[in-house]
């Protein structure tokens, strides 16, 4: 029953939030809501550690045999924790004045509910519903509170997303038509359809072109949600649906998919090197990181899958940290163009320190969270083919390069002489401190987190290898 509460609560508080008008009131309500939701999720994690499996099943539309069936295993719970933490960060980090704050937080909470539902659902029907449902709030957030080019970006975003979800629907229909027993050729077809859906969501090259614009044009809280959690939907789709319903397709085409993912690693890393906008650097670096995670999910080895699931969490943490720092800078200076920034270290050493730690985590420096995940993933890829591991390993080198370039451009140098004061508020100090501590903590003591995701990832890798 707690699962149902976890999924319904954000929706209910979103409805309340739509009726709030004042900036303060709606933010207070959103904060309360995300913290209650976080408590619910952690409580269900506790219950899970006691029982080993959580599930709830309630009849919804009996005529069609559709049930509200939710059940979580380890990695799903891990994703739910993620989608409890990231919205909390998004709400805490929001301080600027917005038009219609009530609707804004309502949509944010609605997106949280959709993600919770997607991660916890246990049948294909609900999976499709929540998949589609997660598109709407992000679209409205982009449309209502985006930057100057929001219209074009929103159209691109929605066309890509809907194309993906229609591919998903087509695949699901095919599975439904064949009654679950998909033939070998059928599995190839279904695999391709599902792959289009997840490749758009993750995104992978060549389905990525919605992503940099969307990152750049969205409000920072929305970017946190899209980069931190929404992109993980695709990876979860691989684990939850693709490997389960088209295992033969995965066996036959895993090489090609890994190849594509490696192309997007190299493509993302090299483009991140030449971007002139803070958020676009993050977008392309995300492209590279997500590519690595997708590649190692298809490696079919337990290390690869475990590392990938672990990295989903640490990538979310790092990217949220980066976007938050970007937002703080943007609020103070009014720009995120790298050419106009610089010299912030002298104004705020604390911000600079946090930025450095986040960057180290993001490039996989030892003793940070990125190191654990990336090492495991590279192990996994190595056992498929050494070349894959070598090419993917290039992302670490390139990552160090573009991240240091970013740090240098933003924090060091003389920069603008009339920089304003960088007085961080307490909520920013605490939030960034938490991120910094968890990056290092997950790097030094990864074992509890790895244990958390182990049994389930073994189960999944079994199902992908046995065929």
């Amino acid at each position, binding site marked *: 029953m707690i699962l149902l509460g976890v999924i319904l609560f954000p929706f209910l508080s979103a409805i309340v939030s*739509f009726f709030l008008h004042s900036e303060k009131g709606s933010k207070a309500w959103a904060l309360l809501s995300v913290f209650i939701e976080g408590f619910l999720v952690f409580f269900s994690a506790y219950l899970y550690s006691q029982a080993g499996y959580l599930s709830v099943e309630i009849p*919804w*539309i*009996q*005529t*069609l045999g559709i049930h509200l069936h939710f059940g979580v295993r380890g990695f799903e719970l891990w994703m739910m924790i993620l989608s409890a933490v990231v919205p909390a960060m998004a709400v805490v980090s929001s301080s600027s004045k917005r038009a*219609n704050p009530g*609707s804004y937080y309502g949509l944010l909470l609605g997106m949280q509910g959709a993600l919770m539902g997607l991660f916890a659902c246990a049948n294909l029907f609900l999976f*499709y*519903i929540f998949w*589609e*449902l997660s598109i*709407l709030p992000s*679209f*409205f957030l982009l*449309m*209502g509170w985006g930057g100057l080019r929001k*219209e074009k970006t*929103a*159209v691109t975003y*929605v*066309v890509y997303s*809907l194309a993906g979800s*229609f591919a998903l*629907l*087509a695949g699901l*229909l095919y599975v*439904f*038509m064949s009654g679950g027993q998909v033939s070998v050729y059928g599995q190839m077809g279904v695999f391709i359809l599902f792959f289009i859906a997840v490749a758009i969501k993750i995104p992978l090259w060549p389905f990525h072109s919605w992503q940099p614009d969307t990152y750049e044009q969205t409000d920072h809280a929305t970017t946190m949600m899209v980069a931190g959690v929404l992109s993980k939907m695709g990876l979860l789709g691989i684990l939850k649906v693709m490997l389960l319903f088209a295992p033969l397709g995965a066996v036959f085409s895993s090489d090609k998919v890994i190849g594509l993912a490696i192309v997007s690693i190299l493509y993302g890393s090299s483009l991140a090197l030449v971007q002139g906008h803070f958020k676009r650097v993050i977008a392309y670096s995300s492209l590279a990181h997500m590519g690595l995670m997708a590649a190692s999910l298809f490696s079919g080895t337990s290390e690869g899958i475990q590392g990938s699931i672990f990295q989903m969490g640490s990538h979310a943490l790092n990217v949220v940290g980066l976007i938050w720092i970007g937002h703080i800078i943007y609020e103070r200076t009014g720009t995120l163009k790298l050419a106009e920034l610089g010299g912030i270290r002298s104004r705020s050493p604390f911000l600079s320190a946090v930025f450095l730690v986040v960057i180290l985590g993001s490039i996989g420096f030892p003793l940070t969270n990125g190191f654990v995940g990336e090492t495991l993933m590279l192990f996994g890829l190595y056992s498929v083919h050494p070349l894959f591991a070598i090419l993917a390993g290039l992302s670490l080198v390139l990552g160090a390069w573009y991240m240091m370039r970013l740090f240098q451009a933003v924090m060091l140098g003389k920069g603008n002489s009339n920089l304003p004061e960088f007085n961080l508020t307490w909520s920013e100090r605490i939030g960034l401190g938490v991120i910094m501590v968890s990056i290092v903590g997950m790097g030094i003591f990864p074992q509890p987190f790895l244990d958390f995701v182990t049994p389930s990832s073994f189960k999944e890798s079994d199902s992908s290898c046995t065929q």
Partner: protein
Amino acid sequence: MYSIIILTVLGIIGMLGDMLPLKRLFLPVTLLGFALAWLGYFFEFPMHTSLFSFDLISMCFGGVMLVITGISVITVYGYGSFKHGSEPPYTVLALMIFATAGGLLMVAWSHLMMLFLAIEILSIPLYVLVGSQGDRKASQEASLKYFLLGAVASCIFLFGMALYYAGTGSFLLGAVHPHSLVGSAGVLLMIAGVCFKAGVVPFHSWVPDVYEGAPTVITGWMAALVKVAAFGALTKMVGSLSYSVWGLEVMGMAVLTMTLGNVLAVQQGSLKRLLAYSGIAHAGYMLLVFLPVTETSITTVFFYGASYALGTLGVFTVIHILEQSGLSATVDALRGLFKRNKTVTLLWCLSVLSLAGIPPLPGFFAKLLVLMHVVKAHHSGLLWVTFLNFLVGVYYYFRLILYPFTGGLSEESVVLSVWQKVGVVILLILTWGAVLFPEFLLSVF
């Protein structure tokens, strides 16, 4: 029978509305009458005579039609008193009630003559209502076109009925199997006559003109009511006729209807025309349900009709509100709606998303039911055609979702009259009700 009698009495009261004392009671009495009319079904259920059969189909479809007219009566009532600061348009309300009586008859006949009378009782008030904005040339032109084409369609239906009679010697469908060529031709012509009302290609040419010309409050009500009534009548017809007589033709019409409707809707700049073409496409999806008729067909067509009616009513209510604020009903008029009124934008988005079939809105379940029906019928070609059509539909509906959030032509906030607020709130509640408890509508059959 009670329901028809009650509606007729209400219609006569409405006709006399201007002269009656206690005018303030008109709206409550009408709404109470609608509730009583629906309860009337329970007193005589099921009733089968040689002319009428009040069964589950007539009760459920009739209930939907009563809800549609009830909501529209509220908004029209408010429209009259809001716009002119004077009397509500009693004559318009009376004609709407009469047409609803016709709609109820269209799903409660067992004798073909009654079906013909029902179609005419529905249509003749509609011809007048479409032209009821006498000062607008478009309204008169729409009325003229609707009248001429509708009269021809009635003639075609009647000729089909006469041929059926000539072939079988009976006015009862299913009583005699039409082996003869004459009888089969009669069946096809009758289906064509009803399909005209439903707006199925190739009998669709009136739809866009009439939707555009009619006063907007009437358009939404008419679109919803006629579609539900026509598909209710078709459900009753095709169930008792042999599939081999009409199967191929209806399949062709279904494919043509959804494809043409969707393709033409993409290019439209006028909101009402766009929705007219999309309504044509919806008629195509609903026709798929009869290929072939199975035990789930009635459920599907009923749920589809109800969800379409809800979405259409919502959409046209918003267009009407936009028109009242001084804009013409073009796609561009939607710009900036979000800033002008949030509740109206919410209704707009929910209705359009439901029509587009985005989960978890009722339109999604309706489309899912249609797809499942096609899957079960093993028409894989048909399945992919339907699927592509859904895709096109989502494309142009999302354009409509996009516009309210862009920079607007007008910045002043939209003000609603009290009755419009009531109508909007009822529509929102019904939409959410259909999201949370679709089982309520799906389990009746």
